[in-house]
């Protein structure tokens, strides 16, 4: 099962290495990982996408809790939540291709953020599934480069991960 774990972490050097090291050391998967400081500069927020059965996920959350610099964490998958990921795709776009790629981008509510005579760079925001679907939709187009941020997540409603 895929789980999205959000972690508030002391914004100190080495703290991120501890989180990543824990996953490597104990053989847990990381599908994606995003991290940045929050509105409180002493805290970083990290969103981690991982996979495992209930027992593995329970161990992951418990082991993360044990790290001294982990302040709080929540498994967003336990409750209603929103997840977003940003992707930039650079594609070959010349001749008839240019129109077709643009139409496809419009359908996905993606934006063309850079243009050259032979290429488009398209930005797509959405769930990981939507991003996958967009790549599938571009199957007749030559993809030059893909870069994804990894998932960020937040709970719906009044529930929040804060101090």
């Amino acid at each position, binding site marked *: 099962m895929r789980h999205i774990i959000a972690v508030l972490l*002391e914004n100190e*050097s*080495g703290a991120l*290495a*501890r989180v990543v*090291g824990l996953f490597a*050391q104990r053989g847990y998967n990381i599908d994606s990982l995003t991290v940045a400081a929050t509105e409180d500069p002493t805290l970083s927020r990290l969103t981690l996408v991982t996979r495992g059965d209930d*027992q593995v996920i*329970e*161990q992951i959350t*418990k*082991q993360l*809790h*044990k790290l*001294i*610099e*982990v*302040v709080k964490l929540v498994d967003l998958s336990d409750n209603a939540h929103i997840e977003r990921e940003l992707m930039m795709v650079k594609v070959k776009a010349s001749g008839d291709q240019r129109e077709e790629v643009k139409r496809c981008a419009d359908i996905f509510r993606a934006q063309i953020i850079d243009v050259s005579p032979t290429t488009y760079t398209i930005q797509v925001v959405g769930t990981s599934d939507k991003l996958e679907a967009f790549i599938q939709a571009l199957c007749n187009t030559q993809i030059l480069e893909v870069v994804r941020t990894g998932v960020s997540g937040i709970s719906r409603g009044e529930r929040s991960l804060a*101090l």
Partner: protein
Amino acid sequence: MSQQNQPEMLSGGAMLVRALHDEGVEYVYGYPGGAVLHIYDALFQQNDVKHVLVRHEQAATHMADAYARASGKAGVVLVTSGPGATNAVTGIATAYMDSIPMVVICGQVMSHLIGDDAFQETDMMGISRPIVKHNMSVRNPAEIPMMVKKAFYIAQSGRPGPVVLDIPKDMTIPSQKFPYDYPKDIKLRSYNPNAKGHPGQIKKALQTLLAAKKPVLYSGGGVILGRASDELTELARRLNLPVTNTLMGLGAYPASDPQFIGMLGMHGSFEANQVMHNADVIFAVGARFDDRVTNATKKFCPNATIIHIDIDPASISKTINAHIPIVGLVKPVLQEMLSQLDKLQGKAEGKLDQVALANWWNQINQWREVHGGRYQQRAELLMPQAVIEAVHRHTKGDAYVTSDVGQHQMFAAQYYKFDKPNRWINSGGLGTMGFGLPAAMGVKLHYPDAEVVCVTGEGSIQMNIQELSTCKQYGLGVKIINLNNGYLGMVKQWQDMNYDSRYSSSYMDSLPDFVKLAEAYGHVGIRVTTPEELEPALERAFALKDRLVFLDIHIDPKEHVYPMQVPGGAMNEMFLSKTERT
């Protein structure tokens, strides 16, 4: 402001030493080198914190570790950067695996050189990360007192463990002084280690135990670390529970008590493993269902309801699912159980099922007869078990016993009947050969009047034999029981059982003359080769109160440790001797 109220100005090095003193540290074990010279100079200029110079940094960590195991307080290590720090790694990992509080201060190259592959530079923060409870690097000398406080707080609270403090050389420059103030306490928003246990869960656990027909109490190192032996013993007696201890938990419940059924697990007693397998309620206290205890987890204790108390939530349901988990320090949880039990006194729901328990004890006593710790006596050869029993007699069962790793460790665990906690000091989790001698030294230094015995073998002892020199320098009169069979015994045993006795690299040729070696280091050496020589040798050794005596005892090289669980089997599947299995 008056002159008196102004804080004293100290260098980083002096602050570090003063902070250790303010933390109550008496001894630091270490080895000097370039990156810690300022700190060593600060040590030289005071008399409160004493330094013990080992011969290899690994020994410093084991000394600190064993001090912590015996006293409950964090041991302190001081090593230089690079090789000094990497030599400490095995000792840090040893402490980590057994949850031992320890503060390891590592020198580091000057801040501006970090990352340049400078002389004796190594990324100790990176190297130690997976084997510490926490590590920290000093960035500003003014923060040293706070960081020392934090290091001790983290090391000693909750589930204890080693903390590494990495100090670049420029943080300790003698001419740069800062106001010194040692914090009284410290609070961390991200770390709250003092769980008392959920009263509702505790109640449920107690009800389950009261209703049990075949209960067992399985306790581990957490009871020793949590100083909860008295509570554990009282509860076990009031609930009439058979008690088994893990290798790390020996001594938490008196071994001479009739309710004690021995150690459990791979080399546990027949009765302890049978009781576990057949139990209807397993009451696990400060134990972690380690693979050397459970054998195959899929076949583990099929009929048991499992109650599990542990301070570390990650230990609960990690390998074996707990039906009644209780997250908390064992001492307050057991106290709460006792007080709930008091309230049930005289009430129907406070009564034990006496008939079922009588049947259970009857069954247990039958199991006791099956193996009962028997071993074969062979003519002309000393048996290792007999040596341990003799050592127990000569020390009246009251010695601190340290061990290395292998057959001798299991014989000591099985045959030295520990009646008190903190007396059995061994590397359980990591299984570190070379632990025993430095561990004995760490204990002897703090308890000079106590009898300290290191049970070892000719393989393990040679991994830190250089410390015989440290023993001479500090007058550490430990007694070394070298169970010498010429083989790496446990490796040989596995080769006998699984590899048709092909002794691949388990026979050690060209052993030194240990008697002469001990004498060369300024100690007393005694060789024992026949059963008749044992008693007089032990008598002589223990009469030499202040001397280190190295007893090189030649034992039966063919002996195996039994019982031994059948690999991949259930808890109660065991080999009982070379020819019998369950």
